[in-house]
């Protein structure tokens, strides 16, 4: 995973609450094993009922053609566990999500892919929303994970909280599986112990004679 430290770029506001993964990355756009994740991005929300791109939709407006930061409302990313809903954000260049709150699975998928998920309390959220709307894509904002600040036009730097563990993981771009495999001995020891205490959990074998007729 690529290490994250600081991003400077255009911030786009999409302030609805409860934006779900069916909006961010609709399943019908995942027709192949390697879909076009740029095309997938808010595929329906960006279109009118006749399937033409809606020029007034925020993601279609020229000043937001290459966004780096998405500013969202409450419970962003609720719904399914599909990771494509993060990959599609990265495909259009978004590397920071700033929201009032983020759904658990979505937040996890962001961290897995080095997309910085920031949750802000109401006062700070009001401030950044106001400033991002007022700036309207004319000037960039900067998100610095080292100093844990958001800066940009229209006001003072905004401090954000993130757990030390998640911060380290993003800053160092840690290989998640590699990190866990450092504990391979502990995993093996766990399995040996479980074989003693609850052997059925370590064995998924079908009882003879239970195969259905074909």
């Amino acid at each position, binding site marked *: 995973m690529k290490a994250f430290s600081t991003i400077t770029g255009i911030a786009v506001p999409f302030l609805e609450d409860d934006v779900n993964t069916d909006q961010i990355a609709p399943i019908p756009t995942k027709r192949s*094993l390697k879909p076009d994740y740029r095309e997938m991005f808010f595929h329906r929300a960006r279109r009118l009922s006749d399937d033409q791109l809606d020029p007034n939709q925020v993601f279609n407006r020229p000043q937001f053609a290459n966004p780096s930061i998405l500013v969202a409302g409450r419970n962003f990313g609720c719904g399914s566990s599909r990771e494509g809903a993060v990959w599609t954000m990265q495909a259009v260049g978004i590397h920071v999500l700033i929201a009032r709150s983020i*759904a658990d699975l979505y937040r996890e998928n962001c961290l897995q892919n080095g997309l910085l998920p920031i949750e802000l309390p109401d006062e700070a959220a009001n401030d950044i929303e106001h400033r991002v709307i007022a700036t309207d894509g004319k000037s960039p904002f900067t998100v610095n994970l080292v100093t844990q600040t958001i800066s940009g036009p229209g006001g003072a730097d905004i401090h954000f909280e993130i757990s030390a563990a998640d911060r380290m993981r993003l800053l160092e771009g840690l290989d998640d599986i590699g990190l*866990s495999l450092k504990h391979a001995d*502990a995993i093996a020891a766990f399995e040996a112990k479980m074989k003693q205490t609850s052997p059925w959990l370590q064995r*998924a074998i079908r009882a003879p004679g239970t195969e259905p007729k074909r």
Partner: protein
Amino acid sequence: MGTGQSKATMFDRIWDAHYVATRIDGRDLIYIDRHVLHDLHAPHAFEKLAAAARAVRRPDLTFSMQDHTVATKPGRDETTNPDGAHFQRAMREGSHRNKIRLFDLDDPEQGISHVVAPELGLVLPGSMHAVPDSHACTVGGLGAIGLGCGTSELEHILATQTIALRRPKTMRIWLNGHLRPGVGAKDVSLKIIAALGTAVGRGYAIEFAGPIAKALCVEARLTLCNMTIEMGARSGFIAPDEKVLAYLKGRPYMPRDGEWEAACQQWLALASDEDAIFDKEHQIDCGDLAPQITWGTDQSQTIAIDEHLPNLPQDADARMKMERAYAYMGLEPGTPVKGVKVDRVFIGSCTNARLSDLRIAAQIVKGRQIHESVTAMVVPGSTSVKRAAEQEGLDRIFKDAGFFWGESGCSMCAGGNGDRGRPQERVISTTNRNFEGRQGKGVRTHLTGPELAAACALAGHIADPRDYMERM
């Protein structure tokens, strides 16, 4: 497996029993006892794993299901839904290469993973059960912790048989009262979301408890726990009891050879201590609950069948959200929900397509015809459910009434197999998500239980199932 200490919640016990180590980044490695994959997301993880030259650590504890992209048309094969063929082939190849047991399209036990895993006994109470699908939480009905996960997490579990998590907080939702006829677990779940919202469970694992959780049959518990993710929580569960043991006994993958008794003893000891402290508790009274149905575009927009659609609120943000939902759904505030014309009915999905769901819908349908303006389909949750239903003659009841009777799969729940509605169609669906566009562009989805869905198919409009039950 119990810690023997008092004040432990069931979640604490299961978490502690699966704790392996704490990583340098502060996350706990939690052991996964059973990992069930599906065709929409596993192919990508197989590819990444191969690229990194990593092996599947425990193929013997991993199972593959074809469910998301499979066609439901009788006589189907992988070409019936051409868009799904690549996924199913990649799933077959990846499972074969990694020596994972695959329940393929023609397997007599194929079906939706969350339906198949319980019925085969792949889920064990007190186990950690992962699926790369948010409805993994379904298996909480058997007293397991289901963890929906993304593709990276799926790859991580394949390589390590663990998941790296921060411990969630614990919540208990106490369900009071007892359910009246015509009201089931789906109604309870929608009522919870209407009362507490779609994000109440964010950061929590939810234990459902109280007289209603106890009274629900095992299949209904699976329905209730299935909807936990729609409350914002990754996992939801009910303490296993004698009903769960009776349900599991004799299922193919259950412990035996003298281990059954020991396993049962451990499972019954999982329940939260009486003085256990939860980070959050809620009480929901379901005593006078009527059948529930969603009217809007998230699951909190739910009302009882005998209510009128809610008036617009004063608060500007809330008003805008509601106006948008009304516009999308083609409905007017203040009008009765009963009587709204229906185009399509779908009875299926990991939420409501087990045998008990089909039986209750068939009771309402029996001897009647669906309304001429309605297209209706039943897609059993698994091929085993389908076979059992056919042995009871339920397929004849549905087909004689005019329903399509399909092969098992996720079907219209997410439309990943091409089963979708048409723009502006009003669909009454026993699934779990009424999001805009979920069941097809412009499709207006109303979520409800199988009783109410069956009644709508007959009436041609949104109808109260109890009106059809009096004659039974």
